[in-house]
């Protein structure tokens, strides 16, 4: 009952005219961001963050969260129509979405994707509503040792799970931690790495770094790869008419894919580091493995589009659980969102739902409304959003750069921060070029001060002894998780070796049977 009454209060808070307007603006901008190839939710939120200055905190975060999940809807349109995902979470949607469009079924594909996104977004938000208070209640008992370990575990997950790039991922995280140490040391008041600059005393703000790494870095990477020369093959779609709507068969084929994708996406999304990309690819594999006709996958199977779409949207709700209850962002986009929270004076974590219930529940309630608005926008305005994808990148790139520069300048009116942003843009390009993980840098930059503070508090409590991590049950459990994450590369390498060994042995055993089959 508590949850229900909190949610009703949240809805009351979210449906204020100002917040509704911001929610609509957020989902609209999110769709536009998602549709634009080369811009994803993290870059979109980072670039749009300065536009929320002057708003009240709830309205600002409602709008930014709407940009986040709106971008997931928008990314599908380009995946289906031009075989170019707006961001990595919709890569799996191209596998069957584009073949469907080439068969003249772009309308049904996009409508089914929108319905799947809505169902998954709503299921995900419902699960978030139930899981967030429980997780927050557990996390309330966490002290500084546990919080330090949670931060470490989150970062390790990001490094271990995002690709196989552990070494470069760890360097990326260390770069973020290094940037986080610039400024006054909270513990002793000593200046670190300020080099006498008054502008660096308060440290390096995450906004210029996030805008640089994700916004400018993306643009530079796209230009380096000739994005400005591309002429995209666009498949048109018109709303209305018989061929626009999905058939009963589409629905029958896809309804369980929608359910499976929603549940899988949410639980994968909860794990820091996994996120929407992993969820959507996993869902595609699951759908293909349970399909009666797996050979249709890759050639235009509706469940192959619906499953991943449901998964990536549910994952965005799942990612909100660690963000709201532990203050732990699991991806680049949630790291930028966390930065937005901190900018507005809100500290996500176990206390957030107790101390700022209006905000926390207002945000959750807004996600229900946002998904409903997105469904309507997607079903009836797909052609309008699709036309955004026709804006050539050679026009888009200068606009994004100017927006990034002016947006960064307006945060503190500091030209030094513009320089930091542009420097991070170049760094972001090289990180993309060589396979580093910019998300880990931003997450470490945002969580660095928390990690340092909690470690310091931990050692004060234990009088300098690190054995405190082993004396408390919760922290001991987290130490085991951290150890497991550290050992995961070794374990997975051992499993791979064993599999390879088995594969090498198998042909000798199977050859006779194959021969028999041929003979029969």
């Amino acid at each position: 009952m508590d949850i229900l009454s909190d949610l009703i209060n949240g809805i009351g808070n979210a449906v204020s005219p100002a917040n509704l307007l911001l929610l609509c603006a957020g989902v609209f901008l999110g769709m536009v961001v998602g549709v634009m190839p080369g811009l994803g939710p993290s870059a979109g939120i980072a670039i749009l963050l300065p536009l929320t200055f002057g708003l009240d905190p709830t309205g600002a975060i409602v709008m930014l969260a709407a940009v986040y999940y709106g971008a997931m809807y928008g990314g599908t349109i380009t995946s289906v129509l031009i075989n170019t995902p707006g961001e990595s979470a919709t890569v799996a949607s191209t596998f069957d979405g584009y073949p469907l469009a080439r068969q003249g079924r772009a309308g049904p594909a996009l409508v089914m994707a929108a319905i799947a996104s809505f169902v998954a977004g709503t299921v995900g938000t419902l699960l978030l509503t139930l899981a967030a208070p429980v997780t927050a209640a557990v996390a309330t008992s966490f002290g500084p040792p546990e919080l330090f370990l949670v931060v470490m575990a989150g970062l390790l997950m990001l490094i271990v799970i995002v690709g196989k790039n552990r070494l470069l991922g760890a360097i990326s995280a260390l770069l973020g931690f290094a940037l986080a140490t610039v400024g006054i040391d909270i513990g002793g008041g000593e200046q670190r790495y300020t080099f006498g600059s008054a502008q660096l005393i308060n440290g390096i703000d995450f906004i210029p770094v996030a805008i640089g790494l994700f916004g400018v870095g993306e643009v530079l990477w796209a230009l380096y790869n000739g994005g400005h020369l591309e002429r995209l093959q666009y498949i048109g779609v018109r709303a209305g008419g018989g061929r626009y709507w999905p058939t009963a068969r589409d629905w029958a084929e896809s309804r369980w894919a929608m359910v499976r994708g929603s549940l899988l996406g949410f639980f994968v999304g909860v794990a820091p580091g996994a996120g929407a990309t992993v969820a959507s690819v996993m869902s595609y594999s699951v759908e293909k493995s349970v399909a009666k006709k797996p050979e249709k996958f890759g050639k235009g199977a509706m469940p192959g589009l619906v499953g991943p779409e449901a998964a990536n949207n549910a994952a965005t709700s799942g990612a909100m659980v660690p963000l709201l209850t532990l203050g732990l962002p699991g991806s680049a986009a949630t790291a930028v969102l966390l930065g937005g929270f901190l900018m507005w004076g809100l500290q996500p974590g176990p206390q957030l739902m107790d101390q700022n219930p209006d905000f926390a529940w207002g945000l959750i309630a807004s996600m229900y409304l946002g998904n409903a608005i997105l469904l309507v926008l997607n079903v009836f305005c797909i052609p309008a959003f699709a036309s955004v994808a026709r804006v050539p990148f050679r026009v888009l790139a200068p606009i994004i750069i100017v927006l990034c520069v002016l947006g960064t300048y307006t945060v503190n009116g500091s030209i030094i921060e513009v320089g930091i942003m542009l420097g991070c843009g170049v760094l972001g390009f090289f990180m993309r070029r060589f396979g580093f993980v910019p998300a880990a840098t931003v997450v470490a930059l945002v969580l660095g001060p928390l990690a340092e503070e909690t470690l310091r508090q931990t050692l004060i409590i234990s009088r300098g002894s690190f054995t405190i991590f082993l004396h408390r049950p919760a922290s001991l459990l987290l130490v085991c998780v951290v150890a497991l994450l550290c050992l995961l590369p070794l374990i997975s390498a051992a499993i791979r070796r064993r599999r390879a060994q088995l594969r090498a042995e198998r042909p000798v055993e199977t050859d006779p049977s194959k021969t028999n089959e041929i003979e029969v």
Partner: protein
Amino acid sequence: MIGPVGRRVRPTAMTAFLCALAVILAVYTVLAFGMEWRAPAGRLGAGFFPRVIGVLGVFLCCVAAFRSLRPAASRGDLADAQRSASTAEREVVPGEVVHGEDAPGEEVPGGRHPWTLLATVAGMAAFLFLLVPLGAFLTSGLVMFALLVMLGRRHLVRNAAISILTPVILYVIFEVLLDAGLPLGPLPLP
């Protein structure tokens, strides 16, 4: 150069980047060792965290640089890691054709354009130095026009229109609606 397995190797662009990072982190570490790692009351000092970060960072950069020196045939792990990491959380670039789960790591058909990249970075640097003296409106317009002409020369009128309209819209959003305080420069803007 003789590599880790005794075969001839050559440094790559990645090696150079990692060496640069290692140097920056080494300077960071030296400065960290100039700070107290333990405060008088027995608490952790300002230098503790930076020392840990710096030492670990230099070590890992050296390991990664060393690994990037390996001959191409035995560099599979790192290359795989590069590809997967660069695609797992990144947005897909325009025009990139995706054919399957492994596809995001493929070479982009459009080829590489280092001069376009350098020119864009030069434009960004000009933006940085001109923003305050010339003001946001004028600098945005000039840099946008230069970038638009560089990226697509055929449509001069359209480029000029975009270069005027975009700064106007951004000026209205930031200065008029949000009262954000952009540098105005010599133009007598309201």
